[in-house]
Every structure is written in structure tokens, then in C-alpha cells.
């Protein structure tokens, strides 16, 4: 196992249940990314009751609340302890190579030979920043979600947040509240209300079966895997944080950042189209919930169906912003993340550097698996509660592979 986050530990737990000998290699401490690579105010966007791991439900006092990082780190650390997971902390993997009958994993603490390898190192190791970053005038300070900790780090004055995923809207909100006027560049995004019909929207995702939808039942799998995270935030108020909320708070919404030319940022004029798309998709999802409630759960306790106001388009969104005028002092690139496989010396990546895998079973590398990637085996795969089903499926495959003497793949 490479990585002692919730996904690697979930695999470890299931391997232990099956008495399969293994080790979990961790470059830092358990839950390292959550310790070192997240901003201060971040809370999970899933409610606590959904933070269950194999054999380890949430047992705290606030099932409907949202964990901050210290609680989450505690939760995952306690899970590791409860599972007696064989974690080797401060062990950084430097290479994984194919050898006869398995793999050789080199670490800064020595080498390990193994028949199977599970990549559980996460989907978000490196912030993805677009090429046009190079054209940003030097006096503007740039941040990624990895070096952003709190709004106080930003220089006073305007901030441009690029990207409207969960990260983008949360940081836009926080920075705007800090008194720095925010311009938010919005590309394709996923709009969700925090609550629907009196229940958390993720309750619906789970119960109506949307999150359980399998990767091999999804029409446009690549698209589903590339979707930005939904515009949600976990707050004690259970507040919705969509673009209407941000506009009302004074955030200036502009189109996708298309280019930076001669120090001027150019924003796409296709904002209305993206709003219509996100509104349409949200409504389609909410209709799915209603249909499920009607047909499969007539006894479900929920308020009547709700309708949400369409995303309000600015009457004339700005198409241009002079980055040299002083109006913008900082840029936060909330433009996604990518995994880091530089240590992986087995040819399993596609031309874009992504793992070629079939539901977490790596293609052309028998005995190699991945967990914790978007829509790996189900829509819920990257969420905490998504780890268990994926771990059980993958360990079943792995156990069969071992029992078969490593011949199947």
C-alpha cells in the first residue's frame, strides 16, 4: 500500500480481515495530505455521519456537522489504530519497478519486494495550474490551494480566484469576507444546494443511489472522472455556497479565464451557457431524487420538492481585466489537482499522465491496483465513505490474483 490516507487504510483494514500480509508505506504521518496540504478553515463537505470507514462508523456527538482538519486527522488516525494498520510512517517511496513475480518498491528506508502494489497516494498531489500562469505580471502574488492557508496571507486589494469548484467557491467566499474584493473566473462547474427538501443534498446522493452508480454503468466515464468538485461547503449553518450567494456577497463573477495577453486577463463570453448547463444538471439531479422518493421510498421523510432560482448572469460580465492596473493584487489558482506518479517506473500511464485502469485494476500491470481516484469504481469513490466498497472489490480481486499464483490479471 502506498499512502496511509483513508483509502490506503481502508484497503489495509480489508486485507487484515482476510489475513493478507501487507505494509502501508507513508511519506509522512497518517493522513498526511490532510495535515500538510489543506488550508486552515477547510471542513469536509460531507456530513460527519458519512465519514464512515470499513468497520469504523462516525461515533462523535455531531453526526450532521462537518469535520475540520484536526477532527478528520483524529478520525483517520483512530481508524488506523483501531485497525492495527501496519503503517510505516516517514517512508517515502522513490520508485516502483516490475520484477519477476511482482514489484520492487524502493523507499528512503530501503527496498521491499511484493507481489501486489496498491497506489493509494491520492488524486490531488500537485496543484494543476494552467500554462497561462506564465503570462501573469510579476507584481501579482500567486497562490495554489497548497500554499494558501488563510486570506491574511494575501496582499490587501483585489484577488482573482480562478476556478469555481468546491475549492474555488470556498476560497472566493473566505477572501471576499476578508475585505479583499474577489473576482471569480468560472468555467464548467457543478452547482448543488446544501439542503434539498430538508435533508442534506449528500444524503440524497447516497440514498437515491446516485453515489453508488458504478463506473461501468456511466456513459461518459472520462467526463465524469474529470468533473470539478461540487460547489459545496461544510458550515455549521449548512449554508449553500453557489454563485448566486457569492454574487450577493459582492464577488464579481466573470467567465473562464481564456488568456492573459499583454498583462490583460481575457475571460470567455460563454458565462450564460455555463450557468444554464449547471442549472440544468442540478435540476436533473434533483428530479432523480424526487423520482426515487416517489417510486422507491414513498415513506421517506422529506419536505416537498423545491425549486431554485436560476444562476443570475451579470448583465454585462467583464471580458477583460488589466492585471497591471493594481486592481488585482493576487491570484488564487483553484484549477484542480493531479496525482504525482513520478516514482512509478512501470509503464501504466496514458499520454496525459493518467493511470490506465479498469475500476482500479491497473491495465497491463498484474497485481497493481489504485484506490481513491475520482469515480474509480463508483461515483462516491473519492469521498471518505466511498473507500469501503472500492476496497472490498479491489481486495477481492487481489486475493483471487494471489490465490491464483499471480497468473490472472
Amino acid at each position, binding site marked *: 500500500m502506498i499512502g496511509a490516507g483513508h483509502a490506503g487504510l481502508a484497503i489495509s483494514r480489508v486485507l487484515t480481515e482476510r489475513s493478507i500480509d501487507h505494509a502501508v508505506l507513508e511519506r509522512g504521518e497518517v493522513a498526511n495530505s490532510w495535515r500538510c496540504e489543506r488550508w486552515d478553515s477547510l471542513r469536509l463537505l460531507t456530513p460527519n455521519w458519512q465519514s464512515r470507514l470499513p468497520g469504523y462508523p462516525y461515533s462523535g456527538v455531531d453526526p450532521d456537522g462537518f469535520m475540520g482538519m484536526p477532527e478528520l486527522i483524529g478520525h483517520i488516525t483512530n481508524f488506523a489504530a483501531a485497525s492495527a494498520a501496519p503503517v510505516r510512517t516517514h517512508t517515502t517511496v522513490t520508485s516502483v519497478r516490475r520484477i519477476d513475480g511482482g514489484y520492487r518498491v524502493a523507499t528512503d528506508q530501503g527496498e521491499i519486494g511484493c507481489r501486489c502494489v496498491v497506489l493509494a497516494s491520492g488524486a490531488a498531489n500537485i496543484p494543476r495550474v494552467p500554462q497561462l500562469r506564465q503570462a501573469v505580471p510579476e507584481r501579482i502574488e500567486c497562490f495554489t490551494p497548497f500554499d494558501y492557508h488563510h486570506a491574511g496571507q494575501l496582499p490587501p486589494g483585489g484577488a482573482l480566484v480562478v476556478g469555481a469548484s468546491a475549492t474555488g467557491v470556498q476560497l472566493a467566499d473566505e477572501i471576499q469576507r476578508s475585505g479583499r474584493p474577489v473576482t471569480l473566473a468560472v468555467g464548467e462547474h457543478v452547482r448543488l444546494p446544501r439542503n434539498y427538501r430538508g435533508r442534506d443534498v449528500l444524503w440524497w446522493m447516497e440514498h437515491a443511489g446516485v453515489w453508488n452508480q458504478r463506473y461501468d454503468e456511466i456513459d*461518459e466515464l*472520462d*467526463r465524469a472522472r*474529470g468533473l470539478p468538485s461540487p460547489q459545496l461547503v461544510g458550515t455549521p449553518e449548512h449554508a449553500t455556497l453557489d454563485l448566486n450567494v457569492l454574487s450577493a456577497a459582492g464577488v464579481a463573477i466573470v*467567465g473562464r479565464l*481564456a488568456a492573459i495577453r499583454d498583462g490583460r486577463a*481575457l*475571460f*470567455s*463570453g*460563454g*458565462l*450564460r*451557457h455555463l450557468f444554464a448547463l449547471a442549472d440544468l444538471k442540478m435540476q436533473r439531479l434533483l428530479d432523480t431524487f424526487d423520482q426515487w422518493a416517489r417510486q422507491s421510498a414513498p415513506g421517506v421523510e422529506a419536505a416537498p420538492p423545491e425549486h431554485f432560482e436560476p444562476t443570475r448572469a451579470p448583465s*454585462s*460580465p467583464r*471580458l*477583460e481585466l488589466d492585471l497591471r492596473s493594481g486592481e488585482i493584487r493576487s491570484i488564487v489558482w483553484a484549477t484542480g489537482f493531479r496525482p504525482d506518479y513520478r516514482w512509478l517506473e512501470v509503464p501504466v500511464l496514458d499520454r*496525459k499522465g493518467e493511470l490506465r485502469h479498469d475500476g482500479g485494476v491497473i491495465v497491463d500491470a498484474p497485481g497493481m491496483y489504485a484506490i481513491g481516484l475520482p469515480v474509480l469504481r463508483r461515483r462516491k469513490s473519492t469521498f471518505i465513505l466511498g473507500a469501503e466498497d472500492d476496497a472490498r472489490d479491489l481486495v477481492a480481486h487481489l486475493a483471487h490474483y494471489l490465490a491464483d499464483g499471480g497468473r490472472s490479471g
Partner: protein
Amino acid sequence: MASVNNGVNIDALLAAREALKGAPAAANFTWRASCKWQNGTHATSTVQGFHGLGDEQKHKTEFSFETDHPEVFASEDHGATPVELVLVGLASCLTAGVATVAQNRGIQLRSVEAKLEGKMNLYGILGIDSDVRNGYDDIKVTFHIDADASKKDIEALVAQSQKRSAVYDIVTNPTNVTVEVV
């Protein structure tokens, strides 16, 4: 300069420019096009009316444009592809600008030819790779101009044409677009 004739009535244009300075509302134009689906990817677009100079205006006749896709796209090829029409728009706008600027600068043109190439990766429109844009990722315009002027002056002519070109601006800068179904 009187001997220069590129067929552009520059005096009328300059007079119009002066007149519009004093009548800003008249300078607001609305251009229109209509499009009617025929079959498959074949559509017919027409233009005739437009608004400007404070009033409804009309081309002398209705102009019609067939668009389709070639047979390699499993289409019937009744006309240029829409993306080729964009190149047509860019080329003709820049060329008209070259003639106008040349007239204004007293440069006699003998021939002006432009070749355009727009590069596009189909992974975008086919939805294969979300990192690939749908539209052109690079457009190259190459002018061959024979005129009574130095190469430098001809280059300046083309540069000024770009500077005042509506289509060049449309293609290179974002435009707010609203699409509705009624």
C-alpha cells in the same frame, strides 16, 4: 494621390466618420443573420436586413450561404463548414481593410491575396479530451500584396487593417454570447 484608385470611396467614408462623431446613437449597428436547418448538417443562412444610422437598413438583395460538412465527416458537403466561413469572414474583413487603408494612404494596389489556415484538434469537438478546445487553436493569415509601396509600408498597411478589423477583434477577443430557445 488623385491617381490612386482602389475602388474605395474614401471621401464618403471620411465624411461619414465626421458625421458620426456628432451622432453617437447612429453609430450603433446591429448585424443580423438567419439560419434554417435543411437536413443532416446542411443549413442555409441568409442576411439582408440590419440596423444602423438610427434606422432599419437593407442589403440590395438577400445573400445566402450554404453550410455543411465534407464527406469525410459522413455529411453531404452542400457547402463550406462553419469554421471555414469564420476564416472567410476574417480574410474578407482584413482584405477590405487593406484596400481602405491603402486608399487613405495613397497606395495603389495591384493585387491582394490572402491564404488562411486554421488549426484545430478534433479531440475537442468530439469530446475525447476536455483539455482540447473546440475551436481553432491557431490561425495563420498570409498576405501576398502587389502595390506601389515598400515592403515596410505594405506591412504597416496590413497592421493598420488588423487594428481596425471587426472580425480580427471578434476572433482574438472574448465576446459575450447569449443563446436562448424561445
